């Protein structure tokens, strides 16, 4: 009897240490959001990179703001498991999400929405001159960029894709006109974890390029809400719940209504930019981007 009590005690302590080691040892910028799922960003609102363990190897969602971050993620993967990184899934093809892919691929296979390769090849961000500027920022950055190669995705899909790796399922949804030329939402249905790409931000105005359509973005947000996620991981910003989607939907709704009302009153784009205020966004970051949000709403209202 006594022996069995002692055994249980040791088992319990062992488990506690194991769990504790995983949470702490990856570093201060990692957050475990579900069993085996760790979100990393060194600085608030830099691009998130997420490590997802599976019984068949590791899947990364984006590889970090810069190759420096990718090396931090690579070191964390090594601490977690001896398994290889099998897949990298892009939420978007912009450099702050994919520049460090070369740290893992090959052999990791890079998966993205259709158009990602074209977007990367056209982007000035991956040009030798730009890379030189990046590496000149610090000796650490120069080290981090050693061996840099542009890694075009191995797999591009149109519209929908599902990837099963080990016990996990990754449903990929192409998000049209939300941020880049090739945005993907990634949904883990069993874990109820959703990666929204940059279709939403947390208390922050997004940068709306001319291709961005607010009605399409609202459609994307509503589609993602219908999945009923428990954990929502945006492209940038703190992981949260479905409230992130609600807040963004409310913002875009208010923006569309506000711009629509002012257009009806005959106001010009410049007047709208000067006058429009959206309640609840007073403490949001990136206020300099608000005018381009208004421009996107104006385009939609005008039907352009």
């Amino acid at each position, binding site marked *: 009897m006594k022996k069995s009590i002692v055994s249980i005690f040791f088992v319990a302590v062992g488990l506690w240490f194991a769990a504790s080691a995983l949470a702490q040892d990856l570093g201060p910028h990692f957050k475990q959001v579900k069993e085996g799922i760790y979100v990393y960003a060194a600085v608030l609102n830099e691009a998130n990179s997420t490590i997802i363990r599976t019984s*068949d190897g590791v899947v990364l969602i984006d590889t970090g703001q810069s190759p420096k971050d990718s090396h931090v993620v690579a070191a964390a993967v090594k601490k977690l498991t001896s398994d290889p990184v099998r897949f990298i899934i892009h939420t978007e093809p912009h450099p702050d999400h994919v520049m460090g892919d070369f740290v893992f691929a*090959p*052999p990791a*296979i890079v998966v993205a929405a*259709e158009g990602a*390769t074209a977007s990367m090849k056209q982007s000035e961000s991956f040009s030798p001159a730009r890379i030189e500027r990046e590496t000149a920022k610090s000796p650490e950055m120069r080290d981090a960029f050693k061996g840099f190669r542009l890694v*075009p*995705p*191995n*797999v*591009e*899909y*149109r*519209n*929908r*894709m*599902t*990837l*099963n*790796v*080990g*016990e996990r399922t990754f449903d990929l949804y192409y998000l049209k006109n939300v941020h880049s030329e090739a945005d993907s939402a990634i949904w883990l249905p069993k874990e109820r974890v959703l990666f929204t790409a940059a279709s939403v931000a947390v208390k922050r105005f997004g940068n709306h390029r001319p291709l961005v359509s607010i009605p399409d973005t609202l459609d994307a947000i509503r589609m993602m809400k219908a999945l009923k996620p428990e954990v929502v991981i945006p492209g940038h910003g703190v992981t949260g719940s479905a409230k992130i989607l609600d807040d963004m939907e409310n913002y875009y709704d208010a923006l569309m209504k506000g711009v629509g009302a002012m257009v009806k009153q005959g106001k010009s784009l410049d007047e709208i930019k000067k006058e429009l205020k959206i309640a609840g966004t007073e403490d949001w970051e990136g206020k300099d981007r608000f005018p381009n949000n208004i421009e996107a709403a104006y385009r939609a209202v005008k039907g352009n």
Partner: protein
Amino acid sequence: MRRVLLAAALLAALAAPARAITPDKPEFKKLADGVYAYVGKLNDANAMVVVTSQGVVVIDTGNNQPETRNILKHIQAVTKEAVRYIVITQNHGDHIGGTPLFSPPATVVLHARTAKEWASWKPYQVSTWRKRFPERAEAMKNFHPLDAALTFTDRMTLRLGGKTMELIYIDDPYNPGDIAVWMPDEGVLHAGFAGYKERHPDIRPDYSHGTTVGMMKQLEALVALKPKIVVPAHGPLMGVVDLQAMIDYLVIARQKVRAMMDKGMPLEAIRKNFRMEEYKGWDREAHYPVIAATIYRELRGEGPDITPVTEKTVKGKIEKIEEEGRFLTVTSDDGKTLALRISNGTDIEGVADRSYFKVGMRFAAIYEEQKERNETLQFQVQ
């Protein structure tokens, strides 16, 4: 008694022996740098192999287990790279059945509609999958065929070690998930189900291979690619001219059925009278009535003809074996004669695969009997 467990569809008549177009031995042909076609013997299912510096891609997996092992031997003779991807062009046993030799760890790439079908497999079908290659028993333990799957709905591009493969799905309400694989740099196309060379198509009233309209849509899209070499699902290597020939064939076939319908002929008469004399010498004339019945349904705007099946059991003795075990004539212990079709999905115990059947062998089988008709050859294990 050697116990043989079978699940099979009952046929009233056995199909006529196939007219051979490919040689009686499989061939492994180089089509371009790193690109090979495995041309099945006697019109068995073909496969395609793409060797890259980042691993090997196998497109379809061979007609049966010995063929799949043969494909692997050929791969190992040309590269040390591991098979990393399996691409499934159509959801039939002679195309998917070799997958467990490679996956896991290879990732299986398939259309979402095919994946949906796999997801509905019953436990014993999954168990058959695991048992297909005894040498893979350890790797297949607790493995579901979809555990390493990558599925797509519209279109997908796979780039690996300098090779680009575009996976093309042409949407149609009745496309069961058939795809083609296009290698633009090499001008090589695996046409999937739509690829036929001098062979009457295997198009069925249950639309398990889609419809003639859907097939024409696929063919038109594939012709537009202007491929230099076309690997069909079955039969000899071909060219774009053969894709165009099949479009013409389907147009004529539809005209013929329409003309008979306009005359008020009933389905049975149309089935009986449908001929494609213009294509004399083409393989599988036995498909005539089935092609006619399929077009008849399409022209009437009817959906797929799903024939109810009843699960039955039988014990008895094998009397006759055709096409390496694909068709068995058996006598049950209570004196009935049955014709059983043994597909690649049939769960067989007691012998490694259907090619090991012997006349006189005793067996027990669970099989499916189709009510009313037997023209639909689609194998549905219950």
